[in-house]
């Protein structure tokens, strides 16, 4: 465990060094992050200029969701997107051989090897929005809610990670899966609204099929102290189950991997 933490630290450091090579990128990244956060906030503002609450959420409460959405987008762009892209490339070019012949867990190495460190700006921005929303609400979450929130956040991270890993793993057979990643990104966009704003079937799909609700809505409810225990248990089952499935699927794929070219 310590060893993996150290390795992860080294991966982060190396990724940071890579990004320092391209300085202009950082400035551009920061501008893009602020721009998108602005777009989301303005959009929400427009909706709320017509109604006090939407799907049972006031503007300030919805801000918590927007903050979480921004945070998770940052997480996806920092860790998942670059690594999934690289996994696809490595499968296509056959350089995955170098990962598979290393004495470490290959999924760990393949999925966390690179980080687009500058996208952490979004994670930071997201955290700031959540705190800002709580301040506007004049609400200080009790310790118990915070602990539950930490758990829900961990499950949210596991769920997004697993979805992306399953898409990446499909590349073992389908080779190019970039469009599937695009598809997820489109569905993920619904995460900026509380899942309760959607009706019947769509809500079910966003809860159980592509569990976007677990990524933004439920953690937001958690920090606001409005989440029931059943949903927490469901999240733990969902997060654990999906993570377990993604590792099994990865292991199965590696078995049938035939490594490209010679």
């Amino acid at each position, binding site marked *: 465990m310590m060893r993996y933490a150290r390795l992860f630290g*080294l991966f982060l450091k190396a990724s940071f060094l890579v990004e320092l090579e391209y300085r202009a990128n950082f400035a551009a990244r920061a501008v893009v992050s602020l721009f998108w956060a602005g777009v989301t906030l303005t959009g929400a503002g427009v909706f709320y200029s017509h109604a006090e609450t939407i799907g049972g959420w006031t503007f300030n409460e919805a801000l918590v969701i927007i903050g979480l959405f921004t945070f998770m987008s940052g997480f996806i762009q920092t860790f998942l997107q670059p690594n999934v892209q690289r996994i696809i490339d490595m499968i296509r070019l056959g350089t995955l051989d170098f990962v598979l012949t290393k*004495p470490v867990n290959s999924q760990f190495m393949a999925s966390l090897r690179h980080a687009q460190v500058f996208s952490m700006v979004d994670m930071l921005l997201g955290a700031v929005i959540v705190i800002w929303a709580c301040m506007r609400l004049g609400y200080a979450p009790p310790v118990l809610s915070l602990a539950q929130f930490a758990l829900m956040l961990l499950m949210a991270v596991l769920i997004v990670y697993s979805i992306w890993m399953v898409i990446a793993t499909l590349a073992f057979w389908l080779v190019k899966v970039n469009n599937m990643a695009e598809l997820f990104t489109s569905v993920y966009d619904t995460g900026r609204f509380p899942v309760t704003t959607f009706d019947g079937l769509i809500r079910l799909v966003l809860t159980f099929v592509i569990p976007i609700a677990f990524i933004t809505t439920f953690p937001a409810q958690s920090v606001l102290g409005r989440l029931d225990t059943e949903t927490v248990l469901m999240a733990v089952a969902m997060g654990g189950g999906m993570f377990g499935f993604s590792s099994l699927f990865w292991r199965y794929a590696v*078995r049938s991997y035939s*490594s490209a070219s010679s």
Partner: protein
Amino acid sequence: MAQIEVDHLSKHYLVHEKEPGLIGSLRSFVARKYRTVKAVEDVSFSIDAGEMVGFLGPNGAGKTTTLKVLSGLLYPTSGRVSVLGFTPHKRQNEYLKQFTLVMGQKQQLMWDLPPLETFLVNRAIYEVPKADFEAILKELDDLLELGPLLKKQVRKLSLGERMKCELAAALLHRPKVLFLDEPTIGLDVTMQARIREFVAEYNRRHGATVILTSHYMADVTALCDRIIVIDKGHVLYDGNFRALIERIAPYKVLKVQLDHPPATALLAQFGEVVAVDGPTAVLHVPRAQAAETAARLLAQVEVDDINFEEPAVEDIIRQVFAGRVDGLLAEAKVAESSHSTPNAM
């Protein structure tokens, strides 16, 4: 006991076929036709610790596939493989820490960073203690003259420099077994020689077992006493390299330069005349009688110049591939394990 044992190994792939052109592409997009490719078929050999063995064969012969099975990247379709007592495809960490795979056409160095950064990551992955790491890096630095390269971004290195760093990155954990797949591909002659010397020196110092594939004959002839010739997935020859040459080409090539076009009949007394071009003639002379024949020729015929050459290795290998050499397998080291003689492919 042998360090690497391969017993009746076969590896078949399912590949999809695509007809040329747009229609062909569309057709294969909708319904794919599959075909089984027998990349490796019933291959057996065993290699002792410290041996350097060359895999020879044309493209697509099955060399790389064999190396990948040995590295645990591919599951054998059938047969048994064991390296250092491990079954490679189980990919246990204890095994992965003891060998290395270098592929001339693929790189593991991080493109935007100096090689040293990759080295540090590999040190952590292989859990090499700091003191050992420094000693090993120092040694590799001496042997490969890495010095200034270590702190330059990989993308700014030349192909040869990058290959040196790739080798270093692959050897930081001091592996016992080295799988080198075309390590000199695309390099100029000088750099090829440098890499070759390095591999030879590394083998001498650390007694590492080396399997080398290359289609530069010079790599193999310079490094390996033993070669395994593979073609179309089958082993055609396994044994001593010199012995192969002597068997297929039991002659030396004698070039004679005269001052006038020679009479073929006259030269025929000294050996088989294979070519006459103006005043120059080329003869094949039995190895054992080479010196004596040369003396006789000098005494009886007036010649301007005379010299012996070894038969070109490329020609010899081509003969092996052409299946023109009968009974090779019967004499090869693995005679007992190759029951089906795959000849004349």
